[in-house]
C-alpha cells in the first residue's frame, strides 16, 4: 500500500515537474515554427545580411546581432572589474556592520525594473552622454570608435546602462563563490607572509571557474535585456564600431516592430531574430551553469544557503 502510494507520488509530481521541460521545448518549437518562412527564404544569409527593409521584404539580422554582441561585450568590459571589486569587498574586506546593508543595496540595484533604468537613461544619462560627445576633441573624432554625430542616444549610452544593470548579478554570484573558498587557502597564504591582496588573489584564482561563470551569467543578462536598451540605443540598424552611433539590438527590434509587422514574412523574420537570441542566451547561460555547477559539486556542497529567496531574486 505504502509502496503504491509512493509510486503514485513520484509519478504525479514528476508529471508536473516535466511541464518545466515542456515549456522550454515549447518555446524552442514555437520559435522555429513561427520563423520558418524566413528560415526558408533567407537561410544562413539571414545572419550575414545588413539590409533590413520591411517595405522591400529584405531582412538581414547582422546589424541586430552586431548591436547585441557589441553592447553586451562593452557592458561586460565596464562591469567585470567593478563587479569583482564589489564581490571582493563584500566577501573579504567589508566591516561586519556594513556587510548586510551593502549586500542589500547592491541587490536592490538588480531589483529595479528595466523600464525605470530606461526612463532614467532617456532623461538623464542620454543628455550627459551627448554633452560628453559634444566635448570630444576634434582629433579624437578621426578614430572610428569616436566618430559619428553627437546624438546622445547610441552605443555608449546603451553600454553604460547595461553595465549598471548586470553588475549586481555578477557581483552576487562572485561573492558567493569567494565565500565558499576554504579559509585554509587564505590562512596558508598569510602564513607564507602574503599581503591581504595576495591572499585575495589566491582565493580568486582558487574560485576562477566560478568567477568566470558569474561573469558569463552577467553576459546572459545583457544579451537579453530589452527595455532599457531600446530606450537609449537609438534604434538604427547599422554595423558600426562607433560608440556614438545609434544602433539596434535583437531584443529592441522585436520590442519595437513586433506589433507593426504587417505581413507574414516580416513577422517570421522578427521571430527568427528571437530564435537567434534564444539560442545565444541558452549557450551562454548553459556554459555559465556548467561552470558554476562544477564549482558547486566541488566546494559548495556544505555551504549554507539560508538566503535562498533573496538569492533567487538576484
Amino acid at each position, binding site marked *: 500500500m505504502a509502496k503504491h502510494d509512493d509510486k503514485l507520488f513520484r509519478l504525479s*509530481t514528476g508529471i508536473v515537474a516535466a511541464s518545466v521541460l515542456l515549456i522550454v521545448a515549447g518555446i524552442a518549437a514555437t520559435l522555429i515554427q513561427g520563423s520558418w518562412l524566413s528560415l526558408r527564404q533567407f537561410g544562413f544569409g539571414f545572419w550575414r545580411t545588413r539590409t533590413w527593409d520591411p517595405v522591400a521584404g529584405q531582412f538581414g539580422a547582422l546589424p541586430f546581432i552586431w548591436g547585441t554582441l557589441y553592447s553586451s561585450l562593452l557592458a561586460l568590459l565596464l562591469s567585470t572589474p567593478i563587479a569583482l571589486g564589489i564581490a571582493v569587498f563584500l566577501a573579504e574586506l567589508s566591516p561586519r556592520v556594513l556587510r548586510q546593508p551593502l549586500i542589500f543595496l547592491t541587490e536592490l540595484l538588480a531589483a529595479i525594473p528595466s523600464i525605470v533604468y530606461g526612463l532614467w537613461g532617456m532623461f538623464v544619462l542620454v543628455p550627459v552622454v551627448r554633452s560628453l560627445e559634444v566635448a570630444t576633441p576634434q582629433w579624437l573624432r578621426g578614430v572610428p570608435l569616436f566618430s559619428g554625430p553627437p546624438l546622445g542616444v547610441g552605443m555608449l549610452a546603451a553600454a553604460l546602462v547595461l553595465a549598471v544593470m548586470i553588475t549586481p548579478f555578477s557581483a552576487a554570484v562572485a561573492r558567493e563563490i569567494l565565500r565558499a573558498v576554504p579559509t585554509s587557502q587564505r590562512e596558508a597564504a598569510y602564513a607564507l607572509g602574503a599581503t591581504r591582496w595576495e591572499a585575495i588573489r589566491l582565493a580568486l584564482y582558487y574560485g576562477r571557474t566560478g568567477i568566470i561563470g558569474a561573469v558569463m551569467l552577467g553576459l546572459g543578462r545583457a544579451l537579453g535585456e530589452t527595455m532599457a536598451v531600446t530606450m537609449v540605443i537609438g534604434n538604427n540598424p547599422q554595423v558600426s564600431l562607433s560608440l556614438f552611433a545609434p544602433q539596434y539590438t535583437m531584443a529592441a527590434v522585436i520590442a519595437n516592430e513586433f506589433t507593426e509587422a504587417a505581413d507574414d514574412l516580416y513577422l517570421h523574420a522578427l521571430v527568427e531574430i528571437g530564435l537567434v537570441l534564444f539560442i545565444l542566451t541558452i549557450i551562454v547561460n548553459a556554459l555559465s551553469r556548467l561552470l558554476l555547477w562544477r564549482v558547486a559539486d566541488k566546494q559548495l556542497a556544505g555551504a549554507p544557503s539560508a538566503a535562498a529567496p533573496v538569492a533567487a*531574486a538576484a
Partner: protein
Amino acid sequence: MTGYDLRRRATSRALEVFCAASVVLALVPLGLILFYVVRQGLPALGPAFFTQMPKPVGEPGGGMANAMVGTLILLGLAATLAVPVGIVSGVFLSEYKGSRLGSAVRFAADVLNGVPSIVIGIFAYSVAVLPFKRFTALAGGLALGVMMLPLIVRTTEELLRLVPESFREGALALGATRSRAVWSVILPAALPGILTGVLVALARVAGETAPLLFTSLNNRFWSTRLDQPIASLTVQVYTYANSPYEDWHRQAFAGATVLIAAVLTFSLLARFVTRRLERMHRGTV
C-alpha cells in the same frame, strides 16, 4: 623593510581601495536613479493618480488607476499559473534529487530563468494571441507566469532542503507515507520561506514590460476582462515616456515611482522574513 615589501604593501592597499571604490561606484547610480525618478514623480503622485483614468493629451492630471488594476490582474493570473506548478515541481526536485528527470528539470528551470523576457513574450504571443487573433490579459498573465515559474521551482527546492531530516523521519516513524510526510510535515515547515519566494518572484515580474508589449498590449479604458487587452503600469510608463508631451512624462515618472516603491517594499519584506526564518532555523536545528 625592503623596497620590494613596501611595493607589495602599497599594491595591496591600492587594490583594497579599488574594491571599496567599486562598491561606491555601483551605489552612485542607484542613488541617482532613485533620487531623480522619485523627485520627478512625486509631484504628480497625488490620490488622483491612484483613482483616476488617464487623461487625453493637453488635459493635465489624471491617473493610472486602470493600469494599476491591470498589473494586479496580470500578477494574479501569473501566480495562479506558476505557483501550484512551481511548488509541486520543487517538491519533486527535492524529493528525487538524483533522478535523471530531476537533473533535466533543474537544468530546464535554469535555462528558462535565463531566457530573455522578450522571447517569452514571443512564446506567449504564439500560444495565446495568434490562435485567437486577439491580445488578451490571459496572454500577458501566461508570459509573466512562465517568467515566475523557474524562480518558484528553485526557491521551493532549496527551502525544502533546509527542513531538517528529522522532520521526515518523525513522520515516517508515525506510519506516514512519503506523500503524507511531504504535504503535511515537510512542506508546511518550509511554507513561510516559499511564500516569501513567491512574493519576490511577483515583485520581479511586476516590473516586466517586454513580455507584455504584444500579449496584453495596453488599454486606455477601464477593463478587467481577461479576454481583452489590459493596461499595465510598466507598458503605460513606456508609452508615456516615448510620447512628446511634458504632462505624460510627468505621469511616466509617477508610474516609475510607484514601481520603485513596490520593489523596495517587497525586497525589504522578503529580507525581513528571510532573516526571521534564518533565526528560526538556527533555533530548531
